[in-house]
């Protein structure tokens, strides 16, 4: 037993070493900053120790706006993208010809530089005085009116954001799910066919449980990733997210770090800890649900 204990830690050592220096240490720094009130980065001074930072952040309407945006983004994109990825993977699994072609095409977004792709999306959706943008052109073909996607009503901006986010995360999810589906032991299917089980029963009783670990992996990492959304927003709306009303929590953190008056790591850290708390809560819930529903 003792040998085993030490061995486990030994195997973990390299990971712990790297994480310790490059993740845990910064995290502790963050916690320290969060309690040093009003720490100004340029002058490296602070006012005292206490809860002021958290209070400041929670009173800031732009932080709350960012929280709202992030939550909406998460709630919409994670289930949708996972469900859509599942559907597409099932579809891919059921066809033989052209399967490779489709898989390669679907993986393209992952390979390309996100800055460039974001720029393209912005161009496609942006409405200027000269042109309504490609997407609006298509909408016009169908007879509807153009919508100002980048600068217009909140729901339009949210739609663009969700669409882009889903578009970006799909390749990875499709990859994981097709791989998971392919790894299900075909014997189970054969047995079910012989028994004459219906397709939906096969899906719910065999397929789904078999790939449930992967689905939960995607859900958990999907939530975590969606809460950290920021660079995608910048790619489409530019760096002035607060004015566009589309800031996310991480965006707020980043703005605070580099604020115009020298940067406030303290407020940024307080906001980050609040984010951490939220994500931790949701992940723990996810883990508990998964323990019940995941089959190995």
């Amino acid at each position, binding site marked *: 037993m003792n040998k*085993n204990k030490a061995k*486990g*830690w030994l*195997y*973990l050592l*390299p*990971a712990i070493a*790297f*994480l310790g*220096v*490059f*993740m*845990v*240490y*910064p*995290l502790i720094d*963050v916690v320290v900053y969060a309690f040093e009130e009003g720490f100004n980065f340029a002058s490296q001074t602070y006012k005292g120790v206490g809860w002021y930072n958290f209070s400041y952040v929670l009173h800031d309407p732009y932080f709350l706006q960012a929280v709202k945006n992030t939550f909406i983004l998460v709630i919409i994109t994670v289930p949708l993208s996972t469900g859509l990825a599942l559907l*597409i993977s099932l*579809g891919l699994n*059921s*066809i033989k010809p052209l399967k*490779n072609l*489709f*898989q*390669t*095409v*679907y993986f*393209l*977004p*992952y*390979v*390309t530089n996100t*800055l*460039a792709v974001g*720029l*393209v999306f912005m*161009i496609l959706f942006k409405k200027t005085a*000269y*042109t309504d943008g*490609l997407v609006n052109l298509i909408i016009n073909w169908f007879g509807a009116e153009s919508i100002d996607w980048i600068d217009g009503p909140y729901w339009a901006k949210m739609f663009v954001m969700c669409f882009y986010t889903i*578009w970006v995360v799909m390749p990875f999810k499709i990859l994981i799910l*097709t*791989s998971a*589906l*392919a*790894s*299900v*032991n075909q014997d189970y299917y054969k047995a079910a066919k012989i028994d004459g089980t219906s397709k939906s029963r096969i899906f719910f009783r065999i397929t789904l449980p078999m790939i449930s*670990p992967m689905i939960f*992996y995607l859900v958990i990492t999907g939530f975590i990733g969606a809460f*950290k959304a920021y660079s995608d927003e910048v790619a489409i709306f530019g760096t002035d997210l607060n004015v566009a009303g589309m800031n996310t929590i991480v965006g707020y*953190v980043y703005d605070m*770090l580099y604020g115009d008056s020298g940067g406030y790591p303290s407020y*940024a850290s307080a906001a*980050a800890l609040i*984010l951490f708390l939220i994500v*931790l809560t949701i*992940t*723990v819930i996810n*883990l508990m649900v998964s323990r019940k529903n995941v089959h190995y």
Partner: protein
Amino acid sequence: MTTQNLQIPQDDLKKVEKRARGKRVTGKTLTYFSLSVWAVLVLFPFYWMLLTSIKSYSAYNAEYTPRFWTDAPTLANYQAAFTAVPLAKYFLNTLIFTVATTALMLVVVTLAAFAFSRLEFKGKNLVFTMFLALMMIPNELVIITNFVTITNWGMRNTFWGLILPSVTSIFYIYLLKENFESIPDELYKAAKVDGTSDFKYLTKVMIPISAPTLVTVVILKVIECWNSYVWPRLITDDANYYLVSNGIQEIREHGFGRQNIPAMMAAVVVISVPLIILFLIFHKKIMAGVSRGGTKG
């Protein structure tokens, strides 16, 4: 008499078969249609990127309404991508960075995933949950502290400074752990009976079985390193250590009063090509998935 009995069911059978086939055909058509719709949605922005990269600088800036085609395609942007900026050198740097980081990552991640999935030790669940918790920290936060750390270690403008913070990704530890856990216990027990050490089991049994997932992880990490931008930009200000992502930004700013988007797109296309080729090569392996057939036979 028996033949008569058989005939009626045959007609029915044909009808049932026909209906079933009809269902299958509509099902298949629907599937192909939906897959194609998504494929178009995915492909269109890339078409746009390619299109932009062959438009000339002045033509692109002059068109106020986006055009689906260009009358005068040009390869000048591709030329500019390599001449205005030492893109070839950046390629080399990125290659070094990617190979080193991926290699290190493989070692670290495999060991950690093995520990979590196979070995029993006190506090395992707690540590794993903490690892997961660390995954929730956004990059933007740790970056400043890491910047200070790396500067204090004097690793600005070095490859080590680029590599070390990028090595570990809990994301992949988690993925690999899930994968390892799906390998049946019987294999492990059998190996133990044979007297194999844990390490041997890891290298001789688990890694080969999990090869597809490992390949997936490698490719994902390669892509991540290839497109890595924020950290290299912060750490390096010596052009000898710039990566391709930095090169893209440089090209973008190499305009004549405004951003040079066509050249930027050309650079992006050039940079993405190696990754696409890599994906095509290892595609089959990735799609093979984990074989559960370890205990069969």
